[in-house]
């Protein structure tokens, strides 16, 4: 009987890890659908960003109370996973609390700290759940989250509550132990005899580990993927001032060759697509941004367009990019290679009206706790609109021609540029 359990557990663990690995590889492949971008300069500064933004969660501290609750979840998550190691070894070998004799009194200290964290995680999850469902903060009731995204967030919070409860019940029903938090739960189980207690402990143990494996495999389908991607995303976040836009080398060269034809290469190069129409025209960093998004909505809450009722929501830009990327990924899964499906990120997932509302103020970029730039995607799509489709409002076309002919966005005579000097 014990052997069957051990075999069953080993198969379960193997399957869970295999599926998780497979999903991660799919996500990696999807991210690499994006265009090459070489972001490897200044590794020292990049590691510093990982330390400050990802590990230190600097941006979360723009609201200290929420930051602390989030730290509970985050530390709890990492530390309690150490306990997983013991659970897995116990499961495979049939041992019971294999670390207990090895660590002696340290074991109690260790599990006590896990229990405290588990309790803090429980409290944080309940507060976060009520912020979403009872207090109903504006950014959580936004229409961006209608349907699946709203359920996703709640599923995660409820799962965490269940997992932490199981962990505490498991400890409470183990007659040999006496830990800090779970000992308070022991009276709840007074009416059970030894066998029943062992049964409850065993059941809690199994549901707990199955729950963890399920959660792990849920991650790739969820907004919760940020717990992994926040780290590389901080590493690859831009180090330059936020005001700097990506240069388009191909156009720089075209202008140069027009002005100085002697510089032009003799062999004509194939014309490049300008800007981004679909996810494959974005950089892999843009696509990793999409997978890193937690859909917290801090970007949209700070967006001047969004908070004055415009259609644009930077969060929705990220969600649409991920939706499109996953559709393209599925297309590749089915057809081995991407077969045009008559759709594109621009128009089918993100509309012109959304793009037109952006003031490029960088508020969304500034707010994002996981170093995402929705603005970068907006600007790449705008480039495609204007340069590939000549799709610009009439006023912008006027502005372009004024710049071209009068060297200013307004129709003034260039001769009057210094007229102000005669009025001093």
């Amino acid at each position, binding site marked *: 009987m014990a052997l069957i359990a051990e075999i069953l557990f080993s198969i379960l663990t193997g399957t869970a890890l295999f599926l998780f690995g497979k999903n991660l590889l799919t996500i990696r492949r999807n991210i690499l659908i994006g265009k090459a971008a070489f972001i490897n300069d200044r590794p020292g500064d990049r590691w510093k960003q990982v330390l400050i933004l990802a590990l230190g969660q600097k941006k979360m501290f723009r609201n200290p109370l929420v930051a602390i609750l989030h730290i509970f979840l985050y530390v709890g998550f990492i530390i309690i996973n150490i306990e997983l190691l013991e659970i897995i070894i116990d499961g495979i070998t049939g041992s019971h609390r294999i670390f207990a004799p090895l660590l002696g009194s340290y074991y109690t200290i260790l599990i006590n700290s896990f229990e405290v964290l588990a309790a803090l995680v429980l409290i944080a999850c309940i507060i976060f759940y009520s912020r979403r469902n009872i207090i109903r903060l504006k950014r959580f009731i936004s229409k961006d989250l209608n349907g699946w995204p709203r359920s996703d967030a709640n599923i995660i919070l409820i799962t965490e509550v269940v997992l932490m409860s199981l962990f505490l019940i498991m400890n409470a029903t183990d007659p040999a132990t006496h830990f800090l938090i779970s000992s308070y739960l022991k009276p709840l189980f007074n009416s059970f005899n030894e066998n029943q207690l062992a049964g409850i402990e065993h059941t809690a143990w199994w549901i707990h580990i199955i729950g963890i494996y399920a959660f792990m495999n849920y991650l790739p389908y969820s907004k919760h993927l940020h717990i992994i991607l926040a780290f590389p995303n901080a590493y690859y976040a831009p180090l330059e001032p936020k005001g700097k836009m990506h240069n388009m080398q191909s156009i720089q060269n075209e202008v140069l060759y027009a002005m100085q034809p002697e510089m032009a290469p003799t062999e004509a190069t194939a014309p490049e697509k300008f800007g981004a129409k679909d996810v494959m025209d974005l950089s892999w960093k843009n696509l990793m941004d999409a997978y890193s998004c937690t859909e917290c909505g801090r970007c949209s809450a700070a967006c001047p367009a969004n908070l004055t009722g415009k259609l644009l929501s930077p969060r929705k830009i990220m969600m649409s990019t991920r939706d499109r990327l996953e559709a393209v990924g599925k297309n590749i899964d089915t057809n081995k290679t991407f077969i045009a499906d008559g759709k594109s990120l621009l128009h089918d997932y993100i509309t012109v009206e959304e793009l*037109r509302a952006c003031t490029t103020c960088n*508020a969304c970029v500034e707010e994002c706790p996981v170093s995402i730039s929705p603005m970068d995607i907006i*600007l790449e799509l705008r480039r495609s609109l204007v340069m590939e489709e000549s799709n610009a409002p009439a*006023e912008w076309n006027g502005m372009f021609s004024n710049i071209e002919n009068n060297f200013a966005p307004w129709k003034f005579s260039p001769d009057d540029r210094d007229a*102000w000097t005669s009025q001093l």
Partner: protein
Amino acid sequence: MKVNTMAEFMAKGEQPEVLFWVGCAGSFDQRAQKITKAFATILDKAGVNYAILGKEEACTGDPARRAGNEFMFQMMAYQNIQVLNGYNIKKIVTTCPHCFNTLKNEYPVLGGNYEVIHHTQFLQELIEQGKIKITDSNEWKGKSITYHDSCYLGRANEIYEAPRKVLESLDMELREMKRCKSKGLCCGAGGAQMFKEEEKGDKRINTERADEALETKSDFVASACPFCNTMMTDGIKNRDEEVKTEVLDIAEIIAKAIQ
């Protein structure tokens, strides 16, 4: 007072210490011209050896680039860099955060490398070095003011302190809006919005920001960008508060406070 151009300096075989990049708004927009004139007056009084490009200056290409027209941007950048490099320009000061951002961050990769500073930084330097002296009996003393952060100065380039330091030197009471510094709310002009109608929504962005500025009940609103200045002025006008609350550029405030 005479404002010299680079061409004039070159004809004399001289090089000014700094180029004043006026920008399109500062050159043509009637309201922004006042800012330009105020800043030129300060430069003159401080004895700064400066020049302008005059008719040789052209749009940096910022609004075209942000609207998505990279061709237009690259054309303008090419021309401007030719002119700037032709005059061997080393240092540029500008009253427009959009020009500032483009010249400082976007021209280097195209071959235009200059030390670029914003006029609020320059004013801070002039005050700290004692090159301009704030009069004790200046008209701003004791008045309250709220400073509206320009996105292209603030978040885009992390310049939050210089404009505030300049205002503090006037013994004014600086009142912060609810959203300020890195959390500052845009005036609504950036990203080429200045050159088109706002998309449909339930409020104009500049009205939202003007309301926030008015909430501070300050005597004045300070700006450091000609576009913010227009937007804030219009926003306050929409609330019929323009008589009570004037929007002024930091250069205009300083120009009236020095000997």
